[in-house]
């Protein structure tokens, strides 16, 4: 459309271009705002969960199981540090992974099906990509808040020292996205829920969590099971977090692999979620 035609359209019909300028730019943020407002209704439960979960797990595994391990070997029995210090970064990443698995499925399924707000947003001057991006931003905010709470409780337990180790929060959030966004891409293409989420949780997420070197170093497992850890974002996030937390020594190439295994699925999942949502919303 030429400038002259655009000026004519404006004279004739008011100014749709001015009206759409802000939504074109900030649309994704408006979606995040909407989701955060909705979260207020059940935010208390989320925060309570974010507090109790680390308190219970760090106490049970770090302190309880940790003292047993220390008593039977030495105080720095795993990786040269206390069991609590070893387990805490992986537990934080694991907690965020669970939040990611839940948000990736339920929030995106819901927006299309159970609480059809995505089509409603699309009737406003918001693009399908903005609907997805804004929802992902809300998930990232929830992950970061949950992660910071976990980290602070880790500090109180003495499981970690304040410093670069704080980066385990965004690393954990990234590992959660490496799972959540591919799951969201599936949700965006799923018209009827026939238990796909249960299959993903039981056959993919559970083994990825159990065999990801969370409670013990991955090398303890027989070699034929270790590959589960290698493909699990949780192991890679836990190793990165441990290197920041207590200086676990990892070769440079392995650190690069850790980042790749976190970033690649997240980016692919994100693009597929946008593509699937766009197809569905503009049918």
């Amino acid at each position: 459309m030429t400038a002259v035609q655009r000026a004519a359209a404006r004279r004739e019909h008011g100014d749709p271009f001015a009206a759409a300028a802000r939504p074109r730019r900030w649309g994704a943020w408006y979606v995040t705002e909407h989701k955060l407002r909705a979260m207020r209704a059940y935010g208390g439960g989320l925060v309570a969960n974010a507090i109790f979960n680390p308190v219970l797990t760090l106490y049970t595994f770090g302190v309880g199981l940790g003292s047993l391990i220390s008593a039977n070997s030495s105080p720095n029995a795993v990786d040269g540090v206390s069991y609590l210090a070893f387990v805490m970064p992986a537990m934080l990443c694991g907690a965020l992974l669970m939040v990611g698995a839940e948000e990736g499925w339920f929030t995106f399924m819901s927006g299309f099906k159970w609480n059809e707000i995505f089509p409603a947003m699309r009737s406003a001057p918001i693009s399908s990509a903005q609907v997805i991006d804004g929802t992902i931003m809300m998930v990232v905010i929830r992950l970061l808040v949950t992660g910071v709470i976990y980290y602070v409780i880790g500090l109180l337990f003495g499981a970690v020292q304040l410093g670069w180790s704080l980066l385990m929060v965004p690393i954990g959030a990234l590992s959660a996205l490496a799972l959540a966004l591919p799951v969201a891409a599936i949700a965006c293409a799923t018209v009827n829920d026939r238990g796909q989420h249960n299959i993903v949780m039981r056959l993919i997420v559970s083994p990825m969590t159990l065999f990801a070197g969370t409670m013990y170093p991955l090398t303890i497992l027989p070699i034929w099971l270790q590959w589960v850890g290698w493909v699990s974002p949780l192991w890679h996030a836990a190793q990165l977090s441990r290197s920041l937390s207590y200086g676990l020594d990892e070769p440079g190439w392995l650190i690069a692999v850790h980042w790749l295994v976190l970033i690649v699925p997240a980016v692919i999942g994100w693009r597929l979620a946008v593509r699937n949502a766009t197809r569905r919303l503009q049918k």
Partner: protein
Amino acid sequence: MPAEPVIRARGLVKRYDDFTAVDGLDFEVAPGESFGLLGPNGAGKSTTMRMVGAVSTRTAGELEILGLDPDRYGPEIRSQLGVVPQQDNLDQELRVRDNLLVYGRYFGLSHGLVAQRADALLEFAQLVDKAKSRVDDLSGGMKRRLTIARALINEPRILMLDEPTTGLDPQARHILWDRLFRLKEQGTTLVLTTHYMDEAEQLSDRLIVVDHGRIMAEGTPSRLIREYSTREVLELRFGSERNATAAADLAGIGDRHEVLPDRLLIYDDDGEAALGEVVRRGYQPITSLVRRSSLEDVFLRLTGRSLIE
């Protein structure tokens, strides 16, 4: 010079794989006009609305909304529209007023302006005392009014309503019609689909009758009735077994007959005279009714089918 149309469709087509939902529609809507799409379920009305709403992309044909192509200027067009979908898609997790607040933000409006408009719209939709209620706690009519209020948060130039009163009780329908009349008086262009002929007659200045994705007829409700029906209709019931045989015996009475499973319709400008002739031929119907022709009769004439089946 007549005003430029706000909607212009030429040969509009939407295909899903092998199925053609909309098959070459041509229509224009003038500013401030109330334009109806009348047709049975599955006629292609909602698909047309989604294309006009710059949500669904067309397969072929030309479409301009406010002089803009929806394929390129979707957000610009949608910034000027209010959309009331067939199924209310309010956010169930939010309270009534919050639904208006978050939606207003999608149009880039400031928090202050959205709050101001939300309060005015709650008043308009008669939902002030429900402002803090959960959406789930609202009746069907209230949810519908809230959806309409939400569609008005951006003060749209065109309000699109897909089956606005389906599933509502008569009282709720009349409240809703009243709100829509007010908007029409204020100069808002209304585009609505319906399969209720009384709704189409009440709310539309002009309408198209759509079936199988094609336009069967176009005009004002009164013109369509004049063109495709008689002034009055005589409805006779002889019992489901006998309607067809009675129709054969009553040939020649009125302009035209329609035999439906439960009744026989005789189209005649003077229904009472037609009834007199029926009785004179020795027939005593179980019930008889003389009424004015409606859009239902137009549809029956055009498609051989009833609107609500």
